C-alpha cells in the first residue's frame, strides 16, 4: 500500500517537474544515439564480413576456372600468379579470410571489437605478427576514448542520472519540511525511501533496458536470451549500486548540496579516476614492446633468412621430418628454399610476439585483479563479455584462426617442399574456415565472479543505507 501510494505521488511530482522531464528526455535521446552508433558499427562489420566471404568464394571460383583453362591446354593469365603453384594458391593471392561475426549483442556494446581484429587473411605466411594486426584503419581518437555506445552511456552517464534523481531522496524531504508530516504517519522511512528509489530505478533502468531490448529486436540481435539476461543483470546491479550509495549518503543527515558533492566525487573516483589509474599502472608495470620493434625484427629476420635459405631448409627438415618426403635434398626447388626462409622469419617473430603476449596477459591480469575496486570496471567487464565483444571471445577467435592457419600450412607446405603443382581436383580439399562460437555458458562462467562482487557491493551498501534509514526520525 505504502509503495503504491508513494509511486503515485512520485509520478505526479515527475509530471509536474519540467526540469526532471527534460533531463529524462535528454537521457533517452542519448540512449537512442548510442544505440544508433552501435548499430552503425555492427552493420559496418557485417558488410566487411560479407564482402570477405564473397571474396573467398570468388577466389576459389577464379582458381577453378583458371585451372580448368590451363588443364584444357591454355596458358595461365600471369606467370607470377599461376594457380598451379602452391605458393600462389596458398599464398597472399589465395588467402582465405577467417571472420568473426559481430558479438550477439554488439549493437549494445562495441567493446573491444573496434580494437581487436574480427577477420584475418590466412595464408602460408600467416604468423603471430599477422594475428596482432588489425586490418581496419580506425580513428585513434575513437580508440582512445572508446565509442559512444550504450555501454558508455550505462557505465559513465547512467550513474549521473541515478545520482541526479536520488541525491536528495531524503534530504529534500527534510529541507522541504515534509519529512515530519510523513513520518508522523504509520510508515517506515525505509519503505518510503525504497519506494521512491524504486520509482526512480524504474525510470532510469527501465529506459535503458527498453531502448536496449527494442534496439535488439529491431536489429534482429535478440537471439541470445542468456547473454541478454547477463547484460540486463549487470545494468540493473550497477544502477542499484548507485541508488544504494545515494540512499546511504542521504542517511548521513547532511544537506542536499553536501550529498550532491559527495556523490559526484564518488562517481569521479569510481568511474573515472580508479579505472584510469589501474590502466596507467598496468601500462607502467607491464609496458608492451613496441610494434615498430616487432616489424624491425621481422624485416631483419627476413633479410637474414633470404641469405641463408639452404642452411635454413636443412634445419627445417630436421625439425619437421614429416615434411621431408619429396624434397630433393641436393637440389631443393625455389619454393622449398623460400618456405624455409619464411619459417625462420616466423620463428623469430614468435619470440617477439610471445613477449608482447606475455606483457599483455600481465596487463590484463593486473586490471582483472584490481577491477574489484571499481563497480564501473566490474559492470563494464560483464556488459562487454555478455555482448560478445570482450577480450575472451576475440581470443577464442584468434585461437581458432591459429589452428586454421596451421591446417592451411599443412595442406600447402608439403606441396611447396616437393615442388608439386596444384590441380583443379585438389580445390575441394583446400581447407576453409569454419567458425565455432564459444560455449554459451563460457560468458556466464567468466562473469560470475564480477557479477557476484557487484551484487555483494549492492547488498553491502544497501544494508548500510537500511541501517542508516532505520535511525532516521521525524525530528532530524
Amino acid at each position, binding site marked *: 500500500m505504502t509503495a503504491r501510494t508513494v509511486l503515485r*505521488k512520485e509520478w505526479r511530482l515527475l509530471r*509536474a517537474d519540467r526540469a526532471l522531464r527534460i533531463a529524462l528526455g535528454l537521457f533517452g535521446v542519448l540512449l537512442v544515439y548510442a544505440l544508433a552508433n552501435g548499430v552503425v558499427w555492427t552493420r559496418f562489420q557485417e558488410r566487411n564480413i560479407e564482402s570477405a566471404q564473397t571474396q573467398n568464394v570468388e577466389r576459389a571460383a577464379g582458381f577453378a576456372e583458371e585451372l580448368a583453362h590451363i588443364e584444357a591446354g591454355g596458358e595461365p593469365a600471369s606467370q607470377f600468379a599461376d594457380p598451379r603453384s602452391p605458393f600462389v594458391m596458398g599464398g597472399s593471392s589465395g588467402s582465405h579470410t577467417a571472420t568473426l561475426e559481430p558479438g550477439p549483442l554488439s549493437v549494445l556494446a562495441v567493446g573491444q571489437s573496434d580494437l581487436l581484429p574480427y577477420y584475418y587473411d590466412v595464408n602460408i605466411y600467416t604468423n603471430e605478427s599477422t594475428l596482432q594486426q588489425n586490418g581496419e584503419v580506425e580513428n585513434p581518437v575513437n580508440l582512445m576514448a572508446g565509442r559512444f555506445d550504450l555501454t558508455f552511456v550505462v557505465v559513465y552517464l547512467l550513474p549521473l542520472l541515478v545520482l541526479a534523481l536520488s541525491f536528495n531522496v531524503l534530504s529534500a524531504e527534510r529541507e*522541504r519540511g515534509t519529512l515530519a*508530516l*510523513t513520518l*508522523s504517519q*504509520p*510508515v517506515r522511512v525505509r519503505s518510503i525511501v525504497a519506494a521512491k528509489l524504486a520509482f526512480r530505478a524504474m525510470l532510469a533502468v527501465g529506459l535503458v533496458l527498453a531502448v536496449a531490448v527494442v534496439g535488439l529486436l529491431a536489429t534482429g540481435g535478440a537471439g541470445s536470451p542468456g547473454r541478454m539476461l547477463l547484460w540486463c543483470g549487470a545494468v540493473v546491479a550497477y544502477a542499484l549500486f548507485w541508488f544504494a550509495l545515494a540512499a546511504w549518503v542521504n542517511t548521513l543527515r547532511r544537506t542536499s548540496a553536501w550529498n550532491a558533492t559527495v556523490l559526484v566525487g564518488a562517481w569521479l573516483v569510481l568511474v573515472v579516476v580508479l579505472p584510469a589509474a589501474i590502466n596507467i599502472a598496468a601500462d607502467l608495470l607491464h609496458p608492451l614492446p613496441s610494434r615498430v620493434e616487432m616489424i624491425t625484427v621481422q624485416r631483419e629476420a627476413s633479410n637474414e633468412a633470404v641469405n641463408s635459405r639452404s642452411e635454413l631448409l636443412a634445419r627445417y627438415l630436421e625439425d619437421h621430418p614429416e615434411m621431408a618426403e619429396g624434397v630433393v635434398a641436393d637440389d631443393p626447388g625455389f619454393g622449398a628454399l623460400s618456405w624455409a626462409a619464411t619459417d625462420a622469419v616466423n620463428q623469430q617473430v614468435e619470440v617477439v610476439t610471445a613477449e608482447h603476449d606475455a606483457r599483455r596477459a600481465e596487463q590484463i591480469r593486473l586490471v582483472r585483479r584490481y577491477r574489484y575496486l571499481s563497480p564501473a570496471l566490474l559492470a563494464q567487464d560483464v556488459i562487454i563479455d555478455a555482448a560478445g565483444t570482450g577480450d575472451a571471445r576475440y581470443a577464442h577467435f584468434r585461437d581458432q584462426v591459429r589452428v586454421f592457419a596451421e591446417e592451411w600450412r599443412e595442406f600447402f607446405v608439403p606441396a611447396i617442399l616437393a615442388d608439386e603443382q596444384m590441380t583443379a581436383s585438389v580445390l575441394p580439399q583446400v581447407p576453409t574456415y569454419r567458425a565455432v562460437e564459444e560455449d554459451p555458458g563460457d560468458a556466464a562462467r567468466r562473469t560470475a565472479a564480477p557479477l557476484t562482487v557487484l551484487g555483494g557491493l549492492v547488498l553491502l551498501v544497501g544494508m548500510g543505507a537500511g541501517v542508516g534509514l532505520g535511525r532516521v526520525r521525524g525530528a532530524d
Partner: protein
Amino acid sequence: MQNGESRAGHAPLLEARGLSKNYGDTRALDGLDLTIAPGEVYCLLGPNGAGKTTTINLFLGFVAPSGGQALVSGLDVATHDRETKQRLAYIPEQVMLYRNLSGLENLEYFAALGGRGSLGRERLTEILVEAGLERDAVDRRVSEYSKGMRQKVGIAIAIAKEADALLLDEPTSGLDPKASNEFSALVERLRGRGVGVLMATHDLFRAKDTGTRVGIMRYGRLVTELSTDEIGHADLERIYLEHMHD
C-alpha cells in the same frame, strides 16, 4: 492536579510517565507526568526551550526518551511505533506539503500513508472543505497556498486519518486572527468527536479559549496545571508570568 481519566471518565489517550529527554548535558524534559483523555484539549504553555516541542516529538517517536514512557492508548511509543502513529495526527507549526501537488493530491497522499486507503475525490474534497478550504482551491497547487490554507490541509489530513489524538505544535503561530479563530473552531469540532488534543502554544488567549486544561512548563518541567473553566484570561496571564519570573 486533576488527571484526564477522572475528568472525562475514559482511559487516557495520551500519557506521559516520568518522561525525560536529555540532549547531551541539557535536560530538555524532566520527568513529565501527563494524561489526556478523549475529548480533552490540553494546552502546553511555556517559553522557548521549555520542553513543549520535545514532549510532542516524544509522543510521535521522533526522538527516543532518555527516561520514562510516552503512551498512546496505553501503548508505549518506543515499542509500538506504527500502532501509536496509527492513532495520532500531527500538525506542526508550519504544515509543509508538496508544492507541486494540489491540496487534494497532498491530502490523498498523506491520508493513504495514514492508512485510510483511497478515499476518492469526492470524499477528499468534502474533508478539505470541512477543514475550511475553499472548494475552488482544492485543485490548485500548494505553491499558491497561504500558510493558513496549508494549515487547513494539515487539519484535513488529521480529519481524514480519523485519529484518536491530535498533536499540535504551535499551530496558530503566524496565522491572522480570523484564520486562528477558524483553526480553533476546527479543533473544537474534533474535540466534540472525542478526539484528545495536545497543543503546544505561546498563545495564552487561544489556550484559555480552546483548551480544557493548561499546563505551564519551564526548564523541561511541568510547573503547574490548570483547568480553563476555573480561571479567566487575566488569571492565566498572571499565573503564567508569575512562573516565568521565578
